[in-house]
């Protein structure tokens, strides 16, 4: 085992506390996590399969265009039943829920949402086999919704 050089040791001393600090900051706030768990009934959620499209930076958080889609054959045996949108920093963690059937043809929907602050928006799809897949997009908001009159 190689010994640490003085330079590496120094980097670790400075870097280690930073890593500890950064981890909680990027973790999703508890209210949203609780809302997701109650919606998914605690099921495991695996990232992927979901395409969530939002602008990366918006001037106003009053009407942010959101588009979500999941590549799915949309057959009675294999389709997307629901896509729920959650956010981290609005007064309420829920945003909108889209429900699909095989007759929807595509698991795709768009709308416009309010964002009170710069934050991550999460889309979680519930598939007909009972599994959950997700995607998240960070949106920088320069003038938030909800607070101004």
């Amino acid at each position, binding site marked *: 085992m190689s010994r640490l050089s003085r330079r590496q040791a120094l980097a670790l001393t400075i870097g280690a506390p930073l890593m500890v600090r950064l981890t909680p900051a990027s973790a999703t706030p508890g209210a949203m996590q609780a809302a997701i768990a109650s919606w998914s009934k605690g099921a495991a959620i695996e990232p992927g399969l979901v395409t969530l499209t939002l602008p990366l930076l918006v001037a106003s958080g009053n009407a942010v265009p959101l588009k979500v889609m999941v590549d799915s054959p*949309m057959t009675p045996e294999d389709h997307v039943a629901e896509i729920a949108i959650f956010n981290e920093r609005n007064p309420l963690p829920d945003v909108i829920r*889209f429900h699909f059937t*095989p007759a*929807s043809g595509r698991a*795709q*929907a768009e*709308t416009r949402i*309010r*964002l009170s602050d710069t934050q991550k928006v999460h889309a979680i799809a519930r598939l007909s086999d009972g599994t959950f897949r997700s995607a998240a997009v960070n949106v920088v908001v320069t003038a938030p919704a909800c607070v101004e009159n």
Partner: protein
Amino acid sequence: MATMIGLPKSAKPGDIVEVKLLLAHPMESGFRGDFDGNKIPRDIITEVRCLYLDELVFRAEFFPAVSANPFLGFTFRAVKSGSVTFTWTDMDGNESHEVREITVE
């Protein structure tokens, strides 16, 4: 502003039809205050449904984070000619609906 519905007049069987819906509604979040500092009570649409040939093809549940004058875009698979019904419900249970016809051949 009135309700606006974007639905093609016709489609071929099996086509994926794109629907766009714009509802006239303030979607008052319940988090805002007026000039006197009183809270403006929440007033939102809670659910939008789309039925095609009497079958549910799409449904959305709204929360206060949906923007004023809500916009929805979604799809359904064309099967045969018939009516497409859009129904939206507010938090007091008031229901509104619009019906459009689509020709599928």
